[in-house]
């Protein structure tokens, strides 16, 4: 009773509204995932007929067999790993020193440099000039091209720059007095102190690389270089165009829908595995204790 007295009627209505909204948001986020998982384990007919709502209908693993027995699936899976790991490492190699430099008051022309970086968030070259640029650099249909071309992201740089700026100046000064050079200050002080921010950026990079579809489709031609998302697109196209396959749909243990769903489930799994490991770095208060505010 005591507790209820502490909250006004308005507070309670607000709390209820918040709970309802969060509930709706949870359902909206979770349901597509559950639906896709259910479809992937359903029969091709049930999926195509739209019978699947929450649980698999005529449960089968035929779609997974189709996917996992296709060698191209494994090639594109491997490629996605290469693009994700290579791309994330490359991004961090650019973003961390870049953000550090932009966060330092002693950087000559700092405001201008920051403006240049931010400018790319609002305006970029556009599809055709970017494509032509990649072509002229000889980076078309190149795995390295995909890794390099999207390494620098202005939003991530600004995010990390702001985090670096919030680190008390005295850490840098103490390190300098201790004999550290710029690189050592960054590597031995700022990077360890910025684990939460770097973890966030790493996750952003991983997710965006893992889901990277459009530019991979535009820039890559060879089958042996395409990532999972492009493979998914190819599979959907192939199955949908396969007239013979469509004709036998009534008996099919799998369909374009179930195979698509199976590929999606397979592609989500690594991110689900990685996330908890990164999440532990989202700890608060890592700066506590080092300086007295």
């Amino acid at each position, binding site marked *: 009773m005591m507790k209820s007295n502490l909250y006004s009627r308005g507070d309670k209505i607000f709390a209820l509204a918040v709970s309802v909204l969060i509930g709706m948001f949870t359902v909206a986020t979770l349901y597509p995932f559950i639906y896709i998982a259910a479809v992937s384990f359903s029969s091709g007919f049930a999926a195509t007929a739209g019978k699947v709502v929450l649980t698999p209908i005529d449960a089968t693993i035929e779609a997974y067999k189709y996917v996992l027995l296709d060698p191209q699936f494994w090639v594109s899976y491997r490629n996605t790993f290469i693009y994700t790991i290579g791309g994330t490492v490359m991004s961090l190699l650019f973003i961390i020193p870049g953000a550090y430099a932009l966060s330092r008051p002693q950087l000559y022309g700092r405001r201008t440099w920051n403006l240049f970086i931010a400018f790319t968030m609002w305006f970029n070259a556009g599809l055709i000039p970017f494509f032509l640029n990649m072509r002229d650099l000889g980076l078309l249909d190149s795995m390295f091209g995909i890794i390099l071309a999207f390494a620098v992201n202005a939003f991530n740089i600004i995010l990390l720059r702001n985090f670096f700026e919030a680190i008390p100046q005295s850490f840098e000064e103490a390190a300098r007095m201790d004999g550290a050079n710029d690189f050592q200050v960054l590597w031995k002080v700022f990077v360890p102190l910025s684990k939460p921010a770097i973890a966030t950026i790493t996750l952003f990079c991983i997710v965006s690389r893992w889901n990277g579809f459009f530019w991979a489709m535009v820039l890559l031609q060879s089958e042996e270089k395409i990532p999972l998302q492009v493979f998914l697109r190819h599979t959907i196209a192939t199955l949908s165009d396969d007239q013979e396959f469509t004709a036998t749909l009534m008996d099919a243990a799998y369909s374009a829908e179930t195979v698509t769903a199976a590929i999606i489930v397979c592609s989500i799994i690594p991110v689900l595995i990685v996330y908890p490991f990164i999440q532990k770095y989202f700890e608060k208060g890592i700066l506590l*204790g*080092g300086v*007295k505010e």
Partner: protein
Amino acid sequence: MSGVFLEGIVKRYGAVEVVHGIDLEIQPQEFVVLVGPSGCGKSTTLRMIAGLEEISDGTLRIGERVMNRVAPKDRDVAMVFQNYALYPHLNVAENMAFGLRIRKTPKAEIATTIEETARILGLTEYLERRPADLSGGQRQRVAMGRAIVRHPDVFLFDEPLSNLDAKLRTQMRAEIKRLHKRLGVTSVYVTHDQVEAMTLADRIVVMADGRIEQIGTPMELFNNPANVFVASFIGSPPMNQFEATLEDSDAGPIAHANGTLIQLHGQEALRGSAGRDVIIGIRPEHVMLNAEPGTASIPIELDLIETLGSEALLHTHVGRETFVAKVETHGEIGHLHGVNALHVKPERVKVFDKETGQAIGQVA
């Protein structure tokens, strides 16, 4: 150990000059405290010595070397920061070893140095702990440890005790003093707390508005402040000050303040200054309850008595200015209520020019 020598040191931020040509000689092994109110340029001066701020003009030498353009790491100075600046991701031992590792000191040597320093500072049992798991005093000790392990030529302290509570501050003050005695390293210490300055310093440098107001030993500053600023800054409670006009008498100069006459016998330098407007300064500690032969008497009305235990502060006023006397209680304060005059030896009375604020006719 090296001395630190500042010649005409100036600091400008754009067009704004914040330190206006400081000359200071700090001898090897000396403990010098820069003291002054916020914004007086003391921390900026220290940071210029450290190399964390560029020197706009003038020459800084540490030992024989001119350091104006030398990087902080190559100056052989170590600094203790106000907010400790301990690396939160490293434990105590790693924090202290940080500088040694960067300088590629052999591991065995690092271990020995850390062990020895931890023993001196009483940190041996905390070596594995992170800064977050330490108390304020322990963190401050680690910060000092980090400075000590490098065996620098000069220690710089930037208000290192200002984040500690009063009791701990007193304790750490004594530790810093002991440490200085033991290590004998030239030290420059910045504080706004005049008590810290008085207790720690071999010499105190009082600063205001980017200038040095006075340099001297604690007792020199206490007894013979060069101007009204130093007089009011050093000492707690501060020196009483009130306006007066000088007059001559047969027995010697007299200060006339709002109807109160204060004898200044013996202050011969004031003779012949009749009519000059001055500020009279009297330390609360120099006030006596009983008259002695030759003492100047100030009739008063008591406003308030503050009891401190062994001492009491008598609050009264001379003209419109508050006047505080610090007297011994000898365990009871009953007799203080009847006080209607205070006494001071004429030679204890300080006289400052009203215009310039500078001391006139000091008696040592």
